[in-house]
């Protein structure tokens, strides 16, 4: 029984991993100014292709069917429900990072949506000045100074790094779904979670698919977002600016361009 519960919650966590495909970095011009560590790129590319195929042939068709047969209100409620269930993992990491205010906000958000929002079906917290946040144990380790290690693309889970691997079992154990003992309920929630992921993450995954070079786009986006979360959702624009280089020397003559700025 415990094994099956573990499997089902792993599936749900994996689906949420797919969700971060369009997020999360260290490539040349990110705010951390570090260089990407991707020694397993060849293998990662294969797994990336597998994950994208999984989306094309499973998640997307299922999401389309789901959208066709359900009203928007229903889909929003389902999305809220699954999002709310991730919050114990989120606020636990807030506190581990010493971000007490954010932790209290996220804890309050979870309580408000669970109690007033009927198990999370309604996102009442957003109307109570309790904005949503993202967090993970990989981010916590980053805040503690643990190096990211090699970039990884995990089957089903999507972009990750060596540093984020310990977060997988912690996320499973902190999910309320792990503590559901009724097999029918477990299977139902898992199936609905897969459908919901296909629906809610379609925009992000399409963004990756429509990029010039999806693998590098996804890697850069994931790493950037990871660094952004580690810095407490703050950006250092000055660091980005440093990469802009000389103001005029390398530029083409503006007069040769069809949209040249008008002369004062």
């Amino acid at each position, binding site marked *: 029984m415990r094994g099956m519960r573990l499997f089902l919650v792993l599936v749900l966590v994996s689906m949420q991993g797919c969700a971060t495909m369009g997020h999360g970095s260290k490539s040349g011009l990110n705010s951390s100014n570090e260089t990407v560590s991707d020694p397993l790129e060849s293998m990662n590319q294969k797994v990336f292709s597998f994950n994208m195929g999984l989306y094309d042939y499973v998640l997307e068709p299922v999401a389309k069917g789901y959208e066709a047969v359900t009203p928007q209100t229903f889909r929003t409620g389902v999305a809220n429900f699954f999002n709310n269930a991730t919050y114990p993992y989120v606020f636990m990491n807030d506190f581990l990072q010493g971000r007490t205010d954010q932790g209290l906000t996220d804890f309050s958000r979870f309580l408000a949506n669970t109690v007033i929002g009927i198990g999370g079906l309604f996102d009442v917290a957003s109307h109570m000045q309790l904005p949503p946040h993202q967090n993970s144990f990989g981010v916590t380790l980053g805040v503690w100074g643990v190096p990211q290690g090699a970039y990884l693309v995990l089957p089903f889970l999507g972009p990750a790094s060596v540093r984020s691997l310990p977060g997988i079992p912690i996320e499973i154990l902190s999910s309320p779904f792990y503590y559901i003992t009724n097999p029918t309920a477990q299977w139902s929630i898992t199936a609905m979670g897969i459908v919901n992921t296909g629906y809610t993450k379609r925009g992000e995954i399409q963004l990756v698919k429509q990029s010039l*070079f999806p693998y590098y786009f996804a890697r850069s*986006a994931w790493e950037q977002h990871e660094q952004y979360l580690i810095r407490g959702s703050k950006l250092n624009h000055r660091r980005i600016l440093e990469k802009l280089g000389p103001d005029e020397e390398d530029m083409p003559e503006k007069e040769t361009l069809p949209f040249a700025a008008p002369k004062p």
Partner: protein
Amino acid sequence: MKKILGVSVLLAGMALLWATSKPVLAEELAATPQPPVKSLSSGPRQAIEHLDEALLASMKSAKKIGYKGRYRQLAPVVDRVFDFSSIATVSMGTYWTKLDPAQQSELVTTLRDYTIATYAFRFDNYSGEQFSIKSVQHLEPNVEVVYCTFTEASGEVHTFDYMMRSRAGSWRIINVVADGVSDLALKQAEFTHLMKLKGFGSLIDNLKNRITYMANTGQ
């Protein structure tokens, strides 16, 4: 917000329209009077307000005017508020100086088309979305950051930071950072890998293929 089309339709459409849509669009643009562009006489905040207004107007009339209408409507505004030469320079990293002036100019022009096409493609309907400017930060002389939010109809809020530089008296966008992800960094990751693996011709072909794809599938 985005439409999803079947793979077969995409492939058939791309094959059919690759050779036709871009020239048609260019001819139409040349023949059609452009909407008047507001004067951008003041600072970076006004430039972003101008872009937001144009995007909202385009979204609200999206279904009526279609992709090509949105492209025409947004083109003059995007031309006025983006600094494509800076964006191209940074996106190419060390490869920029290895291009001859004609290649540099071609990349800047293609990047400009790609940006307008992307806006016209993605902002294809309106259901209550809102743009809001939160604050402006001075970074250094002639460089400021405009902090904005984009609120979806569902209430989900995304942060958009526009890094702006003043050149020749005009404030222009040199980078957009959405929820912590820098568009310039994404472009650099893609462009430099394409340059490394396949060269300049492939980069331009890829950009033009994406523009054609958006022109053919945008509604």
